[in-house]
C-alpha cells in the first residue's frame, strides 16, 4: 500500500510515493538512483548497506523506507564536498582501505558514524565499532589504518596511533 514520505538525503528533500514494504536500501538505489549504497547479506550482518539515519548508523536493508519518513539520511554520495573527497574517503584511497570496493561505502559510513560520536577513538574502539562491517579482500588492517589516518596525524598520537598487527 503506497504511502507518501519525505526523505532528506544528503541535504536534498525528496517527496516519494513508496509501498510500505519498500526497504530503505532499495528506495535509495532504485527510486533515487543513489547506487553507492550496496546490499550484501540482506539480514543486517555484513554492513555493506550502512547509511546514517538522523546521524545513527543504520542497516538500510532492515529499515523500511516508510519508517524513515521525515529523516535526514546521509549516504556515501553525501560525503565528498565541492569535488573534494571527505577525509575518510581520501584516507581509504591513500592507505589502500579497499580492493573490490563492494563493502567500502558501508565501511566509510560506519567510520564516519564513529568519528562523529568519538572523534579520537583508540584502536580498540575502532575495532569494536567496525566489527559489523565485513570485508573479504583487505584482511581489515588496511581499513583500520585508513580510519586511523582519517583521525589526523596529531590526534592519532592521542588515540590509536600505530596499528598493532
Amino acid at each position, binding site marked *: *500500500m503506497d*504511502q507518501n514520505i519525505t526523505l532528506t538525503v544528503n541535504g536534498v528533500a525528496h517527496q516519494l510515493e513508496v*509501498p*510500505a*514494504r519498500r*526497504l530503505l536500501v532499495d528506495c535509495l538505489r532504485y527510486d533515487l538512483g543513489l547506487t553507492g549504497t550496496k546490499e550484501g547479506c*540482506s*539480514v*543486517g*550482518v555484513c*554492513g555493506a548497506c*550502512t547509511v546514517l539515519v538522523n546521524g*545513527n*548508523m*543504520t*542497516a538500510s536493508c*532492515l*529499515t*523500511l523506507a*516508510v*519508517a524513515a*519518513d521525515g529523516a535526514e539520511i546521509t549516504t556515501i554520495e553525501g560525503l565528498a564536498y565541492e569535488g573534494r573527497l571527505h577525509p575518510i574517503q581520501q584516507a581509504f584511497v591513500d592507505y589502500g582501505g579497499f580492493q573490490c570496493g563492494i563493502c567500502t561505502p558501508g565501511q566509510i559510513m*560506519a567510520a564516519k558514524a564513529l568519528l562523529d560520536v568519538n572523534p579520537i577513538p583508540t584502536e580498540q574502539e575502532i575495532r*569494536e*565499532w567496525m*566489527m*559489523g*562491517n565485513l570485508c573479504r579482500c583487505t584482511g581489515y588492517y588496511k581499513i583500520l589504518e585508513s580510519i586511523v589516518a582519517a583521525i589526523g596525524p596529531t590526534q592519532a598520537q592521542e588515540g590509536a596511533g600505530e596499528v598493532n598487527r
Partner: protein
Amino acid sequence: MIDFQFHNPTSLDEVFSLLDTYGDDARMMAGGTALVIQMKQRLVLPEHVINLRRVPGFAEIRQTSNGSGGLTIGALCTQQEVATSPLVEQTIPIVAQTYRHVATPRIRHMATVGGGLVHGDPSQDPPPTLITLGATVTLVSANGQREVALSDFLLDYYETDVRPGEVLTQVSIPAVPSGAGAAYLKFLPRTADDYPTVAAAAVVTPGEGNVCQDVRLALGAVGTTAIHATDAEDALRGQPLTENNIRAAAALVKDLVDPLDDYRGSADYKRDMSEVFARRAIQSALTNAS
C-alpha cells in the same frame, strides 16, 4: 516481502485502538531488526505494521523512583543507549556490559530494549542477566497495566506473555544487592557478533563466613527460553562458597537445559558447556563481589 499497511501512531491510545481494530492481523514494530527479517523470510505476514517509534515517552533511562537504586528503562531505548549510558554504567554496570555483547554496534543502534524482549529469541544476551537481577516488564493495555517477572514473561521459543492489546512499555531492573557481584559470560567460539553457543549470568551475594547468602543463575541459548536455574541456586544458597559446592551446583544445570544441535555445537556439547559456563559465571560473580 508481502505488502502491508504501515501505521504511525503518536500516542499509546492510538496504538491500543489500532490493536483493537486489526487484532492478529497487526504486528508492532520498534527497531525492526527482528521483524523485518522475519517478514522478508515470510515467517511473519502481517497485514498491518504498527510503528511504535513515534510514540513519545518510552525512550528514557532513569533511576527507579522508589529510591531502591534500580533502573527503569523505556522500551524504546535502543540497545546502544543502554550499552553506553553513563547512568547504567554507574548504577548497574553488568547491564551495560551485557548489552555491549549484543550483535554489532549498528544493530544495537536500531534494536530496542523492549523489542528485543518481546521477540523472545532464547539466544539473546540480555535475558539471562536481567533474570538474575530480578527484572520485571510492564505491559500496558487500554484496560490497565500489569508487571511480570521476566522469567515468567518468556514462555517459549519466540513466544512471550504479551496478551492481545498489550504493549511492553518498560523494564524495571532492581539494583545488584549490597555486597553482591554480578557476571555475564558469553561463550562465543565463532565470530564476535554471533549468538552465544552458551551464555550464563550470575549474581552472588557472599555472607558471613563465606556462606552463600544468595545466588541467582540463568542461562541463555540452551533451551526454548532463557533458563532461570533455580535448582542450582537452591543447591548453593546457604552453603559455603567452596569450589566443590560451586561445582556441584553448576553440575545441576545439565538437567535444566535442553539445547539444540546446530552449527554452534551439538546438544551434548552445549549441555557440557552449560555446566562449565554456569560454574565460571558463579565464580566470576563471586570475584566481582565487593
